[in-house]
């Protein structure tokens, strides 16, 4: 690339353009103003103006997860930067590729407690893959190149580039490098053939194998290879919340979701298998419950691009470190070959899990005159089946009902905050997803607690023409906390009641220029959802659901899967309220 003398701020934009970034999400402020001024001079990168930097960060995450590209968020120093901390932490836990660009006070003021100064590289150090405080404008091209490279290579994750205002103003000869110079960053690019052979041997010889698939599979763009492996080996697939969509959920080999609110059949399969193949998953406590009691009889094969995940929690009998796309492709070939040579497919085991699914289906009751929250996600599923829909969620009961009843057919079609459990993730993530997938219908299944944490971004959705459908599962409570208080804290309700009266969500939506629909009766639900899905506008469907409904099944925190609490008709949930 030919070089030209430009300012640091321009260099940031030219770098984003060179990376092919179509959109960034942010809010201007003092220390980042030179870069916003450079935007005013023109750039091919669309800027979506959020209403809160946390929203901008989650939008960038939603964009990244819907598109598979790196998300970009931009904010000013001090409070602008600290507001990005939650999205950065979220992206760290869920391995979302994210480049955050923050303004910083002038170099001469750093360390003086200047206005809107904060040590954002220090604050975020435990939750980024890497970060830079750029001290010379001439470093900007190489830093930006490295930032994108690190965010998306190996295990994906967030990086932060902090640029003092005077560095944005200083001039440099701009040339975007073709290559990175990172001698210490060498994520694995190969898979050891002996480990593949051993893994294939163990998998093909298993009588009761389970593929336990996490979000790493989606990040690795390895879902096609996963499908090939599962079909070649006739092995059942269980996808985590983060892995939802990595495998088509209407496929005959998909058997649900593991963990705390996973169906009983999935957890029975996970815990009685003889070979557990972890694919880009990390034995999170919400999946395993009591670790010592998890899948006690299983030989563990663990596939991950991050060597540090292997044997971090559960010791791996067959570790396979490397890019999942290669690993799964080679495993599919090898397992297919072993099947052809006569290693029998586990048909009896598949039959057994299918029987468990028949025997222990997801169930919920009905109360006359009350809308059950599960009905909302169930109806949403029947209305969107086969359509190009991307679902995002907040965190809590509604999220678990979305996981249980919405069937994801494609990767990147279910976007939820898994590791960090960030309430308020849903609306901004949906806006980011819409920016990535304008042709898709983007639905945010939200709770009333979550909604109120980020609902100001409805303004962004409306004004930036990024229409989303918010389906509000409104139970007038912080529902999951309420459930825990009822189940584990003697029914002592402590500060969980939000009320349905304030705010009036439909009117609030209208105040933001969106469409608001309130649903109080069951027969209004389907028409309202149909209308919302067909409007092509930002809409909030406020569904007043049973405030006493609890989410089942449930494995209490720290308990083993065998101690699962199931829904019972006579459980007396009503009494607990």
């Amino acid at each position, binding site marked *: 690339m030919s070089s030209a003398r430009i300012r640091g701020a321009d260099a940031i934009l030219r770098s984003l353009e060179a990376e092919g970034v179509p959109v960034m999400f942010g809010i201007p402020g003092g220390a980042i103003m030179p870069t916003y001024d450079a935007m005013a001079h023109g750039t091919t990168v669309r800027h979506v103006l959020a209403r809160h930097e946390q929203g901008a960060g989650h939008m960038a995450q939603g964009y990244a997860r819907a598109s598979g590209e790196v998300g970009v968020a931009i904010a000013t120093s001090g409070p602008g930067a600290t507001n990005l901390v939650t999205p950065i932490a979220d992206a760290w836990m869920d391995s979302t590729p994210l480049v955050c660009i923050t303004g910083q006070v002038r170099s001469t003021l750093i360390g003086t407690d200047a206005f809107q100064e904060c040590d954002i*590289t*220090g604050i975020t*150090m*435990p939750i980024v*893959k*890497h*970060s830079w*405080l750029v001290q010379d404008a001439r470093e900007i091209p190489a830093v930006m190149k490295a930032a994108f490279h*690190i965010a998306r290579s190996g295990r994906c994750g967030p990086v932060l580039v902090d640029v003092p205002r005077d560095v944005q103003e200083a001039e440099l000869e701009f040339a975007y490098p073709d290559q990175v110079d*990172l*001698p*210490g*960053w060498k994520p694995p690019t190969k898979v050891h053939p002996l480990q593949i052979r051993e893994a294939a041997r163990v998998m093909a010889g298993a009588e009761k194998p389970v593929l336990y698939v996490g979000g790493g599979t989606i990040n690795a763009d390895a879902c096609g290879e996963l499908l090939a492996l599962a079909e070649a080996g006739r092995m059942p697939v269980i996808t985590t919340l983060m892995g939802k969509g990595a495998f088509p959920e209407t496929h005959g080999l998909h058997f649900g979701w593991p963990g705390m609110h996973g169906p009983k059949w999935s957890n029975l399969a996970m815990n009685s298998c003889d070979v557990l193949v972890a694919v880009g998953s990390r034995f999170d406590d919400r999946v395993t419950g009591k670790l010592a009691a998890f899948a006690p009889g299983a030989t563990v094969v663990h596939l991950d691009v*991050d*060597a*540090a995940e*292997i*044997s*971090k929690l559960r*010791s791996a009998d067959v*570790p396979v*470190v490397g890019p999942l796309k290669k690993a799964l492709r080679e495993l599919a070939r090898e397992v297919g070959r072993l099947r052809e040579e006569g290693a029998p497919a586990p048909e009896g085991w598949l039959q057994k899990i299918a029987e468990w699914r028949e025997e222990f289906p997801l169930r919920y009751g009905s109360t006359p005159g009350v809308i059950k929250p599960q009905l909302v996600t169930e109806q949403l599923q029947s209305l969107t089946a086969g359509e190009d829909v991307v679902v995002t969620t907040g965190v809590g009961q509604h999220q678990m009902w979305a996981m249980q009843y919405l069937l994801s057919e494609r990767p990147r079609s279910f976007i939820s905050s898994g590791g960090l459990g960030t309430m308020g993730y849903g609306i901004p993530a949906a806006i980011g997803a819409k920016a990535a997938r304008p042709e898709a219908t983007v639905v945010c299944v939200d709770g009333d607690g979550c909604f109120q944490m980020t609902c100001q971004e409805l303004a962004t959705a409306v004004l930036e023409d990024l229409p989303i459908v918010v389906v509000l599962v409104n139970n007038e409570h912080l529902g999951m906390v309420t459930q825990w208080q009822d189940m584990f804290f003697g029914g002592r309700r402590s500060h969980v009641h939000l009320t349905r009266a304030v705010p009036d969500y439909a009117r609030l939506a209208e105040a933001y220029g969106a469409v608001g629909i309130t649903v109080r009766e069951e027969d209004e639900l389907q028409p309202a959802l149909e209308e919302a899905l067909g409007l092509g506008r930002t809409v909030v469907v406020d569904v007043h659901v049973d405030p006493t409904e609890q989410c089942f099944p449930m494995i209490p925190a720290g308990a083993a899967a065998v101690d699962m609490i199931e829904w019972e008709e006579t459980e007396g949930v009503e009494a607990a309220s």
Partner: protein
Amino acid sequence: MKHTISVTVEDRPGALTRITTMFARRGFNIDSLAVGPTERPGVSCITLRVDCAQHTLEQIEKQIHKLVNVLRVTELVPGDAVERELMVIKVSAEPERRAELVSTAEAFSGRVLDLGPDAVVFELVGTPEELDSFHELCRPHGVRELVRTGRIGMSRASSKRPRSPRLAAIN
């Protein structure tokens, strides 16, 4: 079980902080830590002493290795590595007991750095265990101040020990 880990890093701002932050956040403890330049310009060596189980050691090594500025992680295995530490110690010594102290220090190849009316400052270089021994011998005299650099080390000149498969997987 105690282990010594030698980490070579690019000499960049925050490189050491990233390592210590990772230790703090993952709940790993550091017994001692020493940092300094190496034979390569722009590359520093951090020697860490940790007290942990084998499983934790593996986690520590892998987590350190993920840091972008880290070039290499090796464990200095006893028997296959040489380790040294520097100690400076100020011991109470009335004139009549000085000779005894100085001859003890000489037995450890120690050197007198400074002499005062009622105290001596010694410098000792040795294995951390030797320094421990000398410290013990000084105790009855009264140790007024003590600082140690933390151990540094490297593999022996004759080392032919193959890198462990564990580390080969990450380096």
